[in-house]
């Protein structure tokens, strides 16, 4: 009887080897393990086996059943995965069709540069302030020591709304407004739009500036150099050389203009830097005590510095843009590059 079982085992093994499809294996499962299957039948007749042989026969029967189950399951898995593979092979897609994308918009390059600069100064503890773009002559000029009928006003071609109201020509107009509302120490930046009555290949009548100023007891001109060098190195890289040279702004004394080594030719001289190797990037200086007087600060108590820069200029240098008129034009092909 045990031989009988062994021959079952043998024939299952042979039949499983011959099986050519998943169906064959499933048929084998029915044939041997199904309700009316060969092994099931044997189990049914277990009671007819003599009592003393029953344990041995029973356990052999179980063993063989487990063996057959494992064998057929294994074969079944092999056929299943091969059939799945076959069917997957028929489901081909063209992966070179462009993806379904959520269209991506672009920030204007001026915004990109402003965001970068603002975040640098915020990391240095500066606070952001704003001021009106249509501004009183007082804040744009008088309070910054540009007296009426003074040629310093010619430095900035002004749009007038009325005799005493102008479109602000610089974000420096935020200085005295901020000082009037706060007491030192002050660390402030003021980004925004400014207007000059000037339009040609290198000028647009509305552009962007960022003003910064710091007022406290004992602020030194060397601090101005330190802060601006740090800033320039963050924006243009550590290897950028920085040059401070004397200049004039009515609201700073001493005043300086700050040049960086040309970002295009690295200082050897090219068209962009007009052969000088240097590019003017910032105006700055120690705040003129006359400004503190207008703001109601004690000019003997406080010192401080102020600086201002044109954002279009920085953007042009950063992105190698050669025409300032591209900024207000808003051509999609331009905007999409940033």
């Amino acid at each position, binding site marked *: 009887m045990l031989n009988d079982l062994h021959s079952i085992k043998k024939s299952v093994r042979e039949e499983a080897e011959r099986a050519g499809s998943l169906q064959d294996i499933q048929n084998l499962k029915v044939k041997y393990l199904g309700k009316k299957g060969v092994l099931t039948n044997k189990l049914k007749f277990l009671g007819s086996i003599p009592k003393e042989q029953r344990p041995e026969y029973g356990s052999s029967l179980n063993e063989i059943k487990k063996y057959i189950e494992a064998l057929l399951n294994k074969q079944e898995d092999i056929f299943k995965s091969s059939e799945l593979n076959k069917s997957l092979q028929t489901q081909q897609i063209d992966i070179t069709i462009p993806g379904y994308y959520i269209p991506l918009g672009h920030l204007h390059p001026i915004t990109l540069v402003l965001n970068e600069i603002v975040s640098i100064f915020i990391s*240095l*503890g500066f606070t952001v302030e704003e001021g009106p773009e*249509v501004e009183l002559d007082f804040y744009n000029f008088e309070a910054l020591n540009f007296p009426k009928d003074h040629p310093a006003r010619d430095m900035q071609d002004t749009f007038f709304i009325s005799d005493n109201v102008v479109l602000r020509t610089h974000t420096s107009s935020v200085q005295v407004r901020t000082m009037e509302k706060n007491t030192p120490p002050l660390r402030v930046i003021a980004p925004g739009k400014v207007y000059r009555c000037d339009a040609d290949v290198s000028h647009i009548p509305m552009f962007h500036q960022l003003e910064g100023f710091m007022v406290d007891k004992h602020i*030194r001109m060397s601090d101005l*150099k330190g802060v601006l060098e740090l800033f320039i190195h963050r924006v243009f890289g550590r290897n950028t050389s920085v040059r401070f040279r004397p200049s004039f702004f009515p609201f700073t004394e001493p005043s300086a*203009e700050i040049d960086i080594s040309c970002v295009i030719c690295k200082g050897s001289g090219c068209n962009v830097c007009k052969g000088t190797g240097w590019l003017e990037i910032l105006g700055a200086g120690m705040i003129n005590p006359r400004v503190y007087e207008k703001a109601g600060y004690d000019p003997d108590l406080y010192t401080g510095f102020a600086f201002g820069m044109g954002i279009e200029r920085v953007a042009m240098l950063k992105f190698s843009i050669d025409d300032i008129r591209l900024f207000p034009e808003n051509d999609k092909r331009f*905007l999409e590059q940033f």
Partner: protein
Amino acid sequence: MKASYNWIKEFVDISMPPKELAHTLTMAGFEVEAIEQVDDDTIFDIGITPNRPDCLSIRGIAREISAIIGLPIKDNPVKIDKEEGEGPDIDIDNPDLCPRYCSRIVSGIKTGPSPEWLSKRLESCGIRSTSNIVDITNYILLELGQPMHAFDLDTLSGKKIVVRKAGEVKSFTTLDNEKRPLSKDTLLIWDGEKPVAIAGVMGGQNTEVSEGTVNVLLESAYFNPASVRRTSKLLNLSTESSYRFERGIDLEAVSFALDRAAQMITENTGGQVTAISDKYPDTFKPQKISFSADKVSSVIGVDIEKSFIEKTLVNLGFKIELAEEGMVATPPSFRNDVEKDVDIIEEVARLYGYDKIPSTLPVMQMSPASEHRTQELVKALKSSMVNSGFSEVINYSFMNPDVLDKLNLSSDDKRRNLIYIKNPLRNEDSAMRTSLIPALFNNISLNLNRGEKMLRFFEISRVFLPTDRKLPDEIVQMAAVFHKKKASSIWQSKHDGFYDLKGALENIFAELKLSNVSFIKDSNAAETYLHPGKAGYIMIDNNKAGYIGALHPGVAEAFDIKGDITVAEIYNIDTIINMIPSKITYASLPKYPYVERDAAIVVNDDVTVSDVMKVIHGMESDLIETVNLFDIYKGKPVPEDKKSLAFSIRYRSAERTLTDSEVDQLNSEIIKRLQDNLNVELRS
């Protein structure tokens, strides 16, 4: 200003080559903007800042160079050998406007062309050579910075000069043959009878030196800077003279320049010189400025030796006295810009060299830095719009007033109250914009003309609305425009562009955690320039926060735009700030599963999705968690004037697992309510 290297060398013995000199000047505050080789000379184009009129001359620049490099200045000695007769009578009516007027008469001269060296020198410095007399006055202007004028004596009424305002004289013809309007306060030069020059700006045609002139009256004067500037602005005429006068010339050097001119004229054309007439009622009183060397060092941020300070200032022509506390500096008469101790500090820093000042970082009390709240929100809005596929544009704040008609704005629309620019560059840019929309349309039109498709733009900027205060309201708005063109992408969906833009806005509101947002149609269209059937208001917390809508076809045509255009505007970014919840509060996650039921209903076309939603959300049950529209269908077998809407309703209880039967019951109650209220039919 243009300055000749060779000419400078006549005043100071420089050995450094032009390029090095240019660098030295630049680093001392006189930016050399260009260097040009002209024959055997080098011409520098130097940017002279408005505070340094003393350097608007060759001698002035030479003087500065001598101070920078520590060499003495050489002056050409001026000597009038023989004076014959008296100078003219001079009357000054307004000594505040003309504190000094010097004159000599040179008679028996011979006018003609200038010698070559003279005309060449003038022209290399940018002044056209005309005739010897005029050229010499211009030569003095360039060399010494003193504007001069020569009158033809024989055209003057008497040997008399009067400095007086125009008063009743309404106009005057200048030597460029232009009739110039005058104000009653314009300062003029008169002879015994008539005006002969506009003081400090330009001489008159009536007394101009000409070919036959034999006797000239020379003017060398100081005119009040503000007065000359007002005249120059009034006439819209800026001359080499007015440019110098309005910045301030050297009050003490007026007679020296006259003598040098008289000498040059007699040397070159012959003639005799009269004695000088010098009307100078209040002589120059130098100002004394106290300062401390310690403050110089502490403001600059580096220890600077007292001896260096003293030497520097002396080289610059200052007189220095040591006082008990600190020092006292007396600036020379040509340095009208130096008034306070900070001006002294600048002089020291400038010649010490900005490059030698160390770089330090300020020591300051820590304080929290913050971004401006509006700017923070603007930044968030921008990034949200960009994520939704919109590109940012930045347009001019100017607006063409005519554009308001193109937008069909009603006559009482407040956006028609414009702030005008008095001196616009173009009429199209003559007003400050009261709406961001027109510029966005122009952006669309420009890009369409350049063949671009799928245009999604937005702008966040200020609009300017007049007030009865001195300054207008500046309101930060956001506007967006979407131009959808069919089949510009293989994935393009068929829905109206309206829903793309609406989706972008919904993204923004979700990002800002604004939950109470709805879109409603009003009885009248939100804007006259919108399609009346495809527009509505954006409501936040039941306030009109903006609008969204398809562009009215008539307006689209006026702006020369074709295609499906949707626009939206948020009226005021700052008011949104107050609606943003100040904090996020976590809601615990549900413990029990949800049950979902779909309902497809057929409604009349005029029933909106929001009508259906309101009914469902209005059920007296707290088991309805979400209602989600997942299909809209029109067409057979749905009757023509109806549409089918399919919703998926999610039910959940916070306390227990719901049974199928109670959900089914609630679902049929909803259907019944919809049938009662909106006359819907169930779609089989």
